[in-house]
């Protein structure tokens, strides 16, 4: 720990907003507040941008998820205020790392590993719209995710027929299925189209019904339903088991997600499909928002831990923060990253602590994993998605496992290597690990592992030569926190969610901003010099 004297003093000491943590939601709020003309101070105790949305070198990755910085226990006293110490709680658990080769760790700095992988952008999603609207695309570059695969019944990978030409090219579907799928796509197009003929519209009753029932009703095969639900609509839970399913997707939202997917295809002439990924990793995104915030006057201080919250002695109201340097800073509003816990103060109702407790017991979890290999899952493509729909790995599999393989062409790993992210929703650590391990076994050959002997041994021997061999892997469980409304002047941002895209996280972030600044526009439109060119030049061709 560095000496307090080495921390520079911050001037001024009063801000409209102080933001602690540079994760994506914090960065977006900081940027939005700066854009709205607020004076903003943005702090992070880490030496890097991104917090839980960061992309880290391999050797920094495990330490980060294994230990969050501990509460600072000095200089806590304050003369004029009640000082409540700030603590952090671990949001990652059950970290399990296997290293089968020293090559990845030797090239640690050539990796940019996402903490919250797998995650991608759909070319038409609201995050891309925001990126274009704010002009931060000038700080970033993207590349196409070339292909999506779904695990087939025989354990192989089949291309996801997500567009007209993909259906045409697909080898896994029967002719009738091709016909049905395209017909369904057209049905959705007509439903969303401008032609106001009633015949073309899906009935209200159908729109309210579960999507899976609608798909069954129009006669799609099991395989097609699976493809639509888990690879395009991106459902998390088994939709076929309506009683047990925690998130039943209605036809209405299924169709709007499908439409989003389809409008993503061809939005940018130099993107192959619907999906893109930022070069140098997801961590570029919070950084880009921070850069824009800085342009608008936001002050940035990294490596600056916050040790306490300052409350008014009488009212107990939030007044400011105390830094590790001992400096006290004040703002009417405070945003804190999700890992912080604020114990109840004597003067203050214990609501914050309570809400944390509630969320702890109720928290959903997401199992995440990273695998490093020297070969691609599919020799034809460098960057791709793989989906294991519920029940495809084993009978009790109740959530979808999603996999994103990235290559060195998005600068996340040394050339010749591949980084593969996996994730799945789970109730507990055991279930989560089981899901990811099953997917890993289906995709990779795992050196000297007891696992490979029993489960799916025949599969393994069959595909043993084709499967990439694992060099390094880690599995961990991440807690999910949801934004449940701000507490007085302090708002806590959510953790990166279980989704493959940023849409929900962005919605939650906008909500936070609206709550603290109800009268301000979330990024007022500025005349960004022609949108189209910005979009077109956005991707590296």
């Amino acid at each position: 720990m560095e000496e307090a004297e080495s921390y520079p003093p911050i001037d001024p000491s009063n801000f409209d907003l102080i933001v602690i943590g540079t994760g994506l939601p914090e960065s977006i709020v900081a940027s939005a507040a700066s854009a709205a003309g607020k004076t903003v101070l943005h702090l992070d105790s880490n030496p890097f941008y991104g917090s839980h949305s960061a992309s880290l070198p391999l050797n920094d990755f495990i330490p980060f998820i294994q230990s969050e910085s501990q509460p600072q226990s000095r200089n806590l006293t304050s003369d004029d205020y009640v000082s409540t110490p700030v603590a952090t709680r671990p949001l990652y658990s059950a970290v399990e790392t296997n290293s089968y080769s020293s090559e990845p760790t030797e090239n640690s700095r050539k990796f940019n590993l996402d903490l919250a992988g797998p995650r991608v952008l759909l070319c038409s999603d609201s995050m891309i719209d925001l990126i274009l609207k704010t002009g931060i695309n000038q700080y970033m570059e993207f590349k196409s995710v070339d292909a999506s695969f779904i695990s087939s019944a025989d354990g192989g990978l089949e291309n996801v027929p997500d567009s007209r030409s993909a259906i045409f090219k697909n080898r896994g579907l029967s002719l009738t299925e091709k016909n049905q799928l395209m017909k369904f796509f057209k049905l959705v197009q007509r439903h969303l189209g401008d032609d106001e003929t009633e015949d073309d519209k899906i009935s209200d009753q159908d729109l309210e019904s579960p999507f899976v029932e609608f798909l069954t009703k129009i006669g799609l095969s099991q395989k097609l339903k699976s493809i639509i639900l888990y690879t395009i609509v991106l459902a998390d839970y088994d939709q076929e088991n309506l009683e047990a399913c925690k998130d039943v997707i209605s036809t209405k939202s299924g169709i709007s997600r499908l439409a989003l997917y389809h409008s993503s295809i061809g939005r940018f002439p130099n993107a192959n499909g619907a999906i893109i990924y930022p070069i140098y990793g997801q961590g570029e995104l919070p950084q880009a928002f921070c850069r824009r915030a800085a342009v608008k006057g936001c002050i940035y201080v990294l490596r600056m831990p916050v040790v306490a919250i300052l409350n008014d002695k009488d009212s107990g109201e939030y007044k400011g923060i105390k830094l590790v340097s001992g400096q006290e800073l004040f703002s009417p509003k405070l945003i804190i990253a999700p890992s912080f816990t604020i114990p109840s103060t004597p003067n203050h109702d214990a609501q914050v602590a309570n809400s944390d407790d509630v969320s702890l017991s109720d928290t959903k979890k997401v199992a995440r994993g990273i695998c490093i290999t020297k070969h691609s899952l599919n020799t034809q493509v460098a960057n791709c998605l793989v989906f294991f729909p519920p029940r495809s790995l084993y009978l009790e599999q109740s959530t979808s496992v999603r996999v994103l393989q990235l290559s060195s062409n998005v600068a996340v790993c040394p050339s010749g290597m591949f980084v593969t992210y996996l994730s799945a929703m789970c109730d507990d650590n055991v279930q989560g690990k089981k899901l990811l391990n099953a997917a890993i076994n289906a995709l990779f050959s795992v050196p000297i592992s007891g696992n490979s002997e029993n489960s799916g041994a025949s599969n393994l021997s069959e595909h043993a030569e084709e499967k990439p061999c694992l060099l390094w892997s880690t599995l961990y469980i991440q807690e999910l926190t949801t934004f449940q409304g701000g507490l007085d002047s302090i708002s806590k941002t959510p953790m990166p969610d279980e989704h493959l895209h940023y849409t929900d996280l962005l919605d939650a972030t906008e909500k936070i901003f609206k709550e603290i600044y109800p009268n301000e526009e979330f990024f007022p439109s500025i005349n960004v010099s022609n949108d189209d060119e910005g979009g077109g030049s956005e991707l590296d061709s």
Partner: protein
Amino acid sequence: MHGRPRKAPTDEEQEASSNKAVKLRDLQSQVLQFHRNKIYTKEAIEISAKLLESNPEHYTGWNYRKLAVEHLLDHLPENGVDSESIQSILDEELRLVENALKRNFKSYGAWHHRKWILSKGHSSTDRELRLLSKFQKLDSRNFHAWNYRRFISALKKIPDEEELQYTTNMIYDNFSNYSAWHNRSVLLSNLLEKGGKGYDDRGTVLGEEYEFVRNALFTDPDDQSGWFYHLWLLEQTLQREPLFLSSWPPNGSTLCLSIDGYLNSQQSWPMLHFQSKARTFPLILYFSEAVEGVSSSTVTVESEYNAGGDLIWRPLSPKKFGFSQAWLTDLKFSDKVHSLESCPVKITVAHFPGIISSSGMPCSQSCHLSFTVCVPANDQERSEVQTAHRISLEEENFKALATQSEEAKLVHSLSKLEIEKVNRPTTCKQSLETISNEIAHCQELLSSTDCKIGKLTLARLWMARNTLITYGSTDDGTEVHYEDILALYRDLMKMDPVHICYYEDEYSLALWKQATSNLVSLLKHCYQYQETSSSPSMNPSLCVRLNGLSLSRIGSMEHLLWVQMLDLSHNKLRSIEGLETLQLLSCLNLSNNKICSFTALEPLKKLKSLQVLDISNNEIGAHSIDTRRYLCSSPLNHALVSEWHFDKFASDDVTLKDHWDAYLIFDDLNLIQLEIMGNAIVDDRLRSFLFKLMPSLKWIDGESKCD
């Protein structure tokens, strides 16, 4: 590039465009001036470049550029003729074309100019390929670019296999790309013709293509480009050598030439008779498709008594120049033969190679047929002039054939006289399998998708299958019921009323085939004609009645070459193309159809035996604009078949001017009786005009000439 709505120009836009027009006119007149005076100075050439860059459609401008380039190349300094200076002249042209194309992708003149420069052989074809891939990315369907691509790939000698792979990639990108599918068909035709490695087995290659396009058809059955390619594939599968199908006189028959049409009681069935004054009769050969090359060198006729030397063969229904399904020649027996009892005639079709279908397939297997001709010894006995009487086509005069009637026996005997199928090349089993396979897939598609082009394809496939089976050897399986095909077309007429005429025509062909494809079914349409009031000495005539069937066009004449009396009334006939094959026809009923001009009757001009014609209750003259009217030879074009005999009419007779199209048709006919009422055009002046035109004509609409 497609489906962009047009917007009305604003005032400013209008003003800008009129300013532009002034500038363009100025440039244009300057360039024309240079062109006329052969000025090829640097300034002049620059001005022409300006013109072409803003208006790439200026053809004279491009031509001027070509002359200028030739001029510059010719006037290079003697010592300085190096490839570099040539290069710089040509590069300037390429740059100009590129700018012109930026303005208009689809400028024929610009693309052509580029080809012209490239064909000089000094420019890099690699550069052109790069340019093309840029163009084709922007508009993958632009046929100019595809056309240019073919030009460049030929110039660069890129193997067809490579270009085929290129089309595969383009189709993978977006399969609604007619240009890509078309290029594919061109390349495959070349590859199959050469038969190189991987392309020697036609059936396998086509099979793979069927599978490839099937994915497109199932993915989006409403997209037409795949179906067009499928149609091309179907054509390739059905491509086979043309077959000689039937003849008149039929193989094995005995033909009796008579003067008057009365049968000699001693003559027994099966015997055909033909009324002939000049001892000539037509010999007709009928093929499975239009062929060329029927001549005395490909068809030999052996008969001692044939008076003429080499026979002259004439195509009867020239659909494409020089090609015809039916071929005609006249056999003439010498007058010196007075009492000839029977004269055998032997004919060998395709004795020597040379008969070729319009798709280039040769008729390779020769086919023999023979018949006997009787020339009655006493053909001078009967008086030549019969008192002709008016034929009444009233319903009461027709009787269905009794199974044991002489006529029924005749029809049956005709059915035995078909050309032996044994002589035909066996059907390619593979073709039939391919068609059956496609039928199964088409039915699968239609089971879940109501798709008009799929239905049309199924109907075509069924027809193709029936054709393969009927023209093939006997053990090829059973035909599809024509009823099913007809039901599909009826369906299509309802689904897609815009194209109803096409469906009606296809429906007619199928119905025609159903009615006439074999003589057993034809028998149901054969009637005996005998006027109740006529003298008993008058022999009953055989009449084929295909009336009231909603036919809109005429089909295959394979089994009808013998017909002399034909009733096509109460149909929807718009055209009678094909009737010219029935050289024996003497009585034709076309009443109550949809014929809307005299020119539509042009096929009748070839029917020398036609005496009775009923075209009453049609639509001749009912439409103010008759699109077909000028599709025939007329005073307005110079392709006159016969000369005009204006002298028949007084020079002040205005009727000729009004009725030149009637003149054109009827001048060649020798009608005795004509029913024409119920057409908008008919009036007394037309009637008197027709009487004047045809001296042989006795009645028009029941009124005789004398009245």
